[in-house]
């Protein structure tokens, strides 16, 4: 399976690209040319220079350093969110899809309830209720989004549940854990991979949006969405301040989507490279 993945050039490139970005975030203190928090009002809106490769923002802070440090909240928080959402959605979807009957009914009604709320508004509501804190943002996302994934996973599980190899296992009595973990879970893995990567994209956008609105990561912590918020006032005078984080968000989200495509192909055992 990994061999196939490695043969798909797009997958490898995207993976490498995203890994580089992630590593940059981890090694931010070493890579960033300046302290992202150091303000120097006198030096605001500086142009490109060796010390400030992308110039400075309205408080004289180095934009590039803030971008690099900004990887941390943007990327890692999204990963955390995605793990929680997909994890919860997956477990509940698997249970609902395989066991049917009352288990399915209960879970799916919960899904219906959660899906009837408009997700973005709900996230705001939860954050407003629990207080403006990044942890609450993640919690809100997981609470709202799991339902959507649970439903998709349940559909996929139902598709595989009646395939002959699962019927064989049920007929001879291979045991539920075997069926769930060795048959169903790997079968839905490729669909899940696509969902997971799409979800990271969504989570990044969500966290950035909330930060942009002032509800997520608070100033002065560098985060791409928050940077966009600060940049909106000076859009015409110092466009770099807005373009940098904006472009970064677009590129990273796109990279995740392309990775998702490639992952789905790689996880399909019938995909043969001629």
């Amino acid at each position, binding site marked *: 399976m990994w061999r196939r993945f490695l043969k798909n050039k797009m997958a490898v490139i995207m993976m490498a690209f995203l890994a580089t970005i992630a590593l940059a975030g981890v090694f931010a203190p070493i890579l960033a040319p300046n302290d992202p928090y150091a303000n120097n009002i006198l030096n605001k809106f500086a142009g490109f220079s060796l010390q400030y490769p992308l110039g400075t923002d309205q408080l004289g802070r180095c934009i590039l350093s803030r971008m690099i440090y900004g990887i941390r909240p943007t990327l890692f928080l999204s990963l955390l969110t995605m793990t929680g959402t997909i994890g919860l959605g997956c477990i509940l979807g698997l249970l609902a899809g395989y066991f049917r009957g009352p288990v399915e009914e209960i879970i799916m009604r919960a899904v219906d309830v959660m899906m009837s709320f408009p997700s973005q508004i709900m996230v705001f509501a939860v954050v407003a209720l629990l207080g403006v804190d990044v942890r609450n943002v993640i919690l809100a996302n997981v609470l709202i989004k799991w339902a959507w994934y649970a439903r998709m996973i349940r559909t996929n599980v139902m598709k595989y549940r009646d*395939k*002959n*190899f699962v*019927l*064989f*296992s*049920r*007929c*001879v*009595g*291979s*045991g539920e854990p*075997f069926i769930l973990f*060795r*048959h169903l879970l*790997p*079968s839905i893995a490729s669909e899940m991979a696509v969902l997971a990567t799409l979800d990271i994209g969504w989570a990044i956008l969500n966290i950035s949006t909330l930060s942009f609105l002032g509800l997520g990561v608070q100033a002065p912590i560098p985060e791409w969405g928050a940077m966009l918020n600060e940049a909106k006032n000076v859009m015409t005078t110092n466009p770099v301040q807005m373009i940098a984080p904006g472009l970064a968000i677009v590129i990273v989200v796109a990279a995740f989507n392309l990775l998702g495509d490639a992952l789905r192909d790689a996880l399909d*055992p*019938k995909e043969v490279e001629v």
Partner: protein
Amino acid sequence: MIKAEHIDVSFKKENQTTLFGRERHQVLFDVSFEVKKGQCLGILGESGSGKSTLGRVLCGLLKPDKGIVRFEGDKKAVMGVVFQDYSTSANPRFTVKSLIGEGLMVMEKREKKALNRMEETNRLLKLVGLDESYLHRLPHELSGGQLQRVCIARALAVNPEVILFDEAISSLDAHTQVQIMDLLKVIQKEKGLTYIFITHDLTSVTYLCSHVLFLYKGKAVEVRETDTISEVSHPYAEKLLGAILNVGDGNETKVPDQAVS
């Protein structure tokens, strides 16, 4: 060995005429038959006759509305299954080794003894006419006949008393079908197994089975030994016998419009 008594199966209809209607579409009507140990019962019917549903009831995968499936000694017999669509009969991610391994795992669990997996797997492969070179292949790397043989090996791995074949050879080429049937005959004799063979092909039934049950529109219209097949009385069975296209004997321009030449 297995006795089916008055099996009724129905499914809830998709298109209900009333809002919370409970209309059901009945698929099997009062089906009863018995299979003794060592016999091979052919269940003969067309698509829509309910034969696959009957197969599922026998496996225990589907509970009938009415009726019961009884086993000798009142203990559920160990049953292996081989399905028709071999492309979905095997988890596409499992190698041949894992596929047979699943069957072995079930047997180990049931008989509470550990086995030398490698040895057993090789023995089973040999039994179905394959060899060790197939161990690490994935399902899509095998031909239909080969994959079906692996499925048979997998069914044998659970050490069953009964094997249910649900149109297991229908998707294979004509000569492969015969080869597999020959294999099944040998295995049955060697291991004293009981077979239930669901199919739509009458000549397969006469080739392999000792008994035949004609299933027509969900009803068991005729049950008899295959030796006495010329004595069928139900019109459906008669029609089926008349429809067999005979081969050879100057058939080039003759229209086969009667029962048997």
